[in-house]
């Protein structure tokens, strides 16, 4: 198998996904098959080929630094799960800070 169950759990943790045992088993099998298929790219010897990250030859775009109205605060917070005093509110990050 191209990827182990532990590697799947590691990648899931990197991607902030909490997988159930059943999901971990299923994804190990499916991701193994997919990785085996996409590993086909390694058949080609392309050491001297420049990587292509973007399909167009674009140059940087410059814009004048002109202030424009931005979203009103209540609109920006309107879809939030929780907010307080004009901020997004989240549970404690688990970090303790010494003062």
């Amino acid at each position, binding site marked *: 198998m191209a*990827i182990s169950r532990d*590697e*799947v759990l590691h*990648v*899931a943790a*990197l*991607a*902030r*996904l*909490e*997988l*159930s045992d059943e*999901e971990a088993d299923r*994804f190990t099998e*499916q*991701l193994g*098959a*997919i*990785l085996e*298929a*996409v*590993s*086909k*790219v*390694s*058949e*080609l010897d*392309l050491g001297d*080929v*420049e*990587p*292509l*990250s*973007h*399909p*167009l030859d*674009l140059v940087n*775009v410059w*814009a004048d630094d002109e202030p424009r109205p931005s*979203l009103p605060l209540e*609109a*920006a917070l*309107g*879809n*939030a*799960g*929780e907010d307080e005093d004009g901020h*997004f509110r*989240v*549970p*404690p*990050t*688990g970090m303790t800070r010494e003062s």
Partner: protein
Amino acid sequence: MGGGLVGATLDTLRLTAEEAMGLLERGEVSRAELRAAYYDAVAARDAELHCYLRLTEDAEGEGVPIALKDVIGTEGVETTAGSRILEGYVPVFDSTVAARCKEAGLSLLGKTNTDEFAMGSSTENSAFGPSRNPWDPTRVPGGSGGGSAAAVAGGLAPWALGSDTGGSIKQPASLCGIVGLRPTYGTVSRYGIVAFASSLDQVGPTTKTVRDCALLYGVIAGRDPCDSTTVDVPPVEVPDAEHLKGLRIGVPRELNEADGIERGVADSVARAIELAEGLGASVEQCSLPRSVEYGLACYYIIAPAEASSNLARYDGVRYGPREAGGSFDEMVERTRDAGFGDEPKRRIMLGAYALSTGYYEAYYGQAQRVRRVIAEEHAALFERYDVLLSPTSPTVAFLIGEKAANPLAMYLSDVLTIPANMAGLPGLSIPCGLSEGLPVGLQLVGPQFSENLLFRTGHALERALGFDYVPERLR
């Protein structure tokens, strides 16, 4: 009122957007009658087809109505991208394409179903249930833009917008017997579109005819200060020529003889090639040796890598439902596990793996090199040919459930559309015949910014083919 054109008798299955525009301009039909005719069709058929995730019955606009795929952000109208993790999300601004449709007077009928985050080839990955093919409701309409394609083919919208990363406009158009354009990368703004793979995503039209396709592309194309990857676009020409004199068509062997292409699909495409020669085009076999063999693998590294980055933003903080958790990390992990379906999870993990230390060069770096090989192979062919021709999809519409349990089999649906997409090339799919009673799509690919040439070629072929886009069982 013109003869027989009162609202109740408008045949939305046959009416093109261009014809609808004419009826409105001549005052033969009112805006309200036109919208009512489409909503009548929705009432009659959407319980079966499930094209729409929501309707927008009080939308403004005096022109021809339109449906938008639910990855396209619409101010004040819920936009979910087919995912639970965006359920209840109501954008506070319009995407540029939605704004351009409004400026052109197009009135929104509703938001159409899509595979979750546009990841899929059948709409079966939608968190809100699959759409069905108007030609045969036991079959998929293709994906991810299956809702838009089924709506147009089933007469539930005169035209619609989709988005295409690996084939999500072209393949559903093919499976539903209509026209779909994936424009050149950079010609249509991605501002306000729910992002999947940013170096590949493009919005484009899904229509009944090539002329409608050109008209709608003209509405949405152009540079946008809000999307720095957009460029100036040549003026769009609505095609009317009915010959192909002087056109050089290349027929890449690998795209026309790939494993898995059904006999009936190959036969329909062969007949279209004969017609093209009859219209004055020269046709020659050519080759894309590495683009087709390595294209799918290249795509399924690059697109998931970009997706894993784009989908990191769904954390339960700024939008979407939130799961309770004792700490920030726990809240984020539970929200993402509950909110994402299997396909986004697979692609996020695949992408995170391909980008992770120790694997980056072997997967992502190598895939980017393959991508250049694909772009250069296509560029070399365009020194000898104006247009490349192939089937759009190796198969006609498959049965609902047929490929749902096997992600790799589903990925193969896009094997013929992916190579041109990796190279940023425009592709037009037009219907070219039936196989076992189901539509077959013909893919025309041109150099970057050759949309006008694709429209001319597609229009001339469309006239010669005389394909009837009304599903047989609904005639």
